[in-house]
């Protein structure tokens, strides 16, 4: 029995135009599940639906076996962390964290102990008397985190909590956040549009698009085996070209292109005769200059380097080919290639996936 279950959940702000349409999802106790998708995909709306900030137009919401579909937001005992931190500007750090406990009429001794514990957990002991305005963004979000977990919520919802912070802090804070979440074992839903963040944090990822779920799986699964072209694009399959499937066997699709035939992994629904889009990551191709160096690849496409971008660990080449422009990433310790050089793009076996167009 799932801890959090959404059944046929439909949410919209206007009649007849649902933002989330018929969503089904089951999350286990203690899990951290990310909702990943571009803005407008319905991930935040779903979160708000779980929090009770918006009504469900249809469907039901179950937490720990109880039906919460129509429970008011203030009776759900769900901790929420917002992108904007949403601390109470007029209250000190201590009072911010104590807010939920005071509403629960927790006695003073226990209140002090629990606030201190929560602040200690996020590394902000000693900041009790400060006002939110006197804290940095990262500190404010840690207070918000403490405030959300101190009430011992049955569920923790995080709405892009790190989006307003700079890159370095984001990574630091997400590690801390994950540690707190694991230590408390609180079931959590994490909304983000950052695939790296979702991959690093989650037990499972829900990739959303246009109000419904595109794919649900572990980070490894979603990263290695994107089931739809949308998920593939979101997971860094930056390159794609069109082709026609000649045959499919054992999950391998044989695809004809104007540059010859290659075989790729077949996604669901790919069958002989289908028009497909083949997608691959910048790291899935090699660039060679001499025909003798061509490895045992599935497909070799001639091209010319348009642009070279040094990125430290690797070098990115933008290559123009008859099948389109490809972004190819090569380790930077390899012999550098010059712009305008003629090259061959060799696609690695098993690292291209064909999707029904």
């Amino acid at each position, binding site marked *: 029995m799932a801890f959090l279950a959404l059944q046929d959940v439909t949410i919209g702000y206007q009649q007849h135009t649902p933002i989330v349409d018929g969503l089904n999802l089951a999350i286990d106790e203690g899990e951290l599940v990310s909702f990943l998708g571009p803005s407008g995909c319905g991930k935040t709306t779903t979160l708000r639906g779980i*929090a*009770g*900030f918006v009504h469900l137009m249809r469907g039901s919401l179950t937490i720990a076996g109880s039906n919460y579909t129509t429970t008011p*937001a*203030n*009776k*759900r*005992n*769900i*901790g*929420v962390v*917002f*992108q*904007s931190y*949403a*601390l*109470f*500007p*007029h209250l000190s750090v201590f009072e911010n964290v104590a*807010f*939920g406990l005071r*509403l*629960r009429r927790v006695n003073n001794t226990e209140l002090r102990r629990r606030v201190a514990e929560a602040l200690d957990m996020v590394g902000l002991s000693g900041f009790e008397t400060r006002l939110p305005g006197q804290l940095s963004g990262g500190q404010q979000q840690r207070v*918000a985190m403490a*405030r*959300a977990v101190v*009430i011992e919520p049955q569920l923790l919802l995080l709405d892009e909590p790190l989006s307003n912070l700079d890159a370095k802090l984001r990574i630091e804070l997400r590690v801390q956040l994950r540690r707190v979440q694991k230590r408390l074992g609180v079931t959590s839903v994490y909304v983000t549009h950052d695939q790296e963040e979702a991959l690093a944090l989650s037990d499972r990822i829900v990739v959303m698009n246009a109000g419904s779920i595109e794919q649900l799986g572990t980070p490894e699964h979603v990263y290695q085996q994107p089931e739809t072209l949308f998920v593939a694009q979101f997971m860094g399959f930056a390159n794609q070209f069109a082709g026609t499937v000649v045959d499919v066997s054992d999950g391998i699709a044989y695809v004809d292109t104007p540059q010859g035939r290659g075989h790729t992994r077949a996604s669901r629904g790919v069958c002989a005769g289908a028009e497909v889009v083949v997608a691959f990551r910048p790291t899935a191709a090699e660039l060679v200059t001499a025909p003798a160096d061509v490895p045992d690849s599935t497909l070799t496409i001639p091209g010319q380097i348009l642009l070279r971008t040094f990125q430290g660990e690797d070098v990115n080449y933008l290559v123009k080919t008859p099948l389109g422009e490809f972004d190819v990433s090569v380790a930077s310790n390899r012999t550098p290639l010059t712009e305008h050089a003629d090259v061959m793009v060799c696609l690695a076996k098993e690292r291209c996936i064909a999707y029904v167009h």
Partner: protein
Amino acid sequence: MKEARFPRVMLVVLMVFLLAPFLIILIASFGDNASLRFPPQGFTLQWFRDALDQRMFVRGFYLSVQVAVVSTLLALLLGVPLAYATSRYNFTGKRLIQVVATLPVIVPELVLGLALLRYLIVATNLPLRPSLILGHTTLLIPYTVRITLASLSNLPYDIEQAAISLGATRLETFFKVVLPNIRDGVLTSFVLAFILSFNNVPVSLFLTGIGVATLPIQMLLYMEYNFDPSIAALSTLLILFSTLVVFITERLLGISRAFK
């Protein structure tokens, strides 16, 4: 330093425009002439004593304070929830409500006063004092609504949702989170509304009568027949009173933050 000259000139012109009328009245109120004139001759405090001796002025003052306090409180009691509702909830006609609540600022006050006279006092036989209070409340609501709306727009809704998720009811959220954060706006509208009501003439003109007249109306009536410096003395006292109201509120409640 040449470019700094223009702003400085503007500043002086502005100060003269703003302060000159006050200074003239202030100085004239100490003049030893039987009629109001500037520049005055001599120096006397007699006009202040005269002004304070007028029973009509003293009674007018008490009535004005009473009307200003009650109607300001009423305007806040109606205006703050109205502003909150229209800024936080979506419902049909909320724009209309916001426009209607602002209407008294657009309609000439004389028209408002006349309308209230004809359809409130004459039609329902309502006594003058409650009529005055109702009239002033109508007049003040746009200010309390507008200023509260402005403060609310600085308070992200996420903050209220955070309170709700922590277990607060709507009402608890309003009193524990919203109100403390829009306090400055509410206080600003209190002071502004109080002074607007206290000094109002056009609406009060129609809603006063025998024995019931606010101080500005009493002064108007007095000036129709008398033109001695006691009216200037009284004005000086009123300026002092208004300044005191602002000053005390600022001292007690730290309102200066609201004017930032």
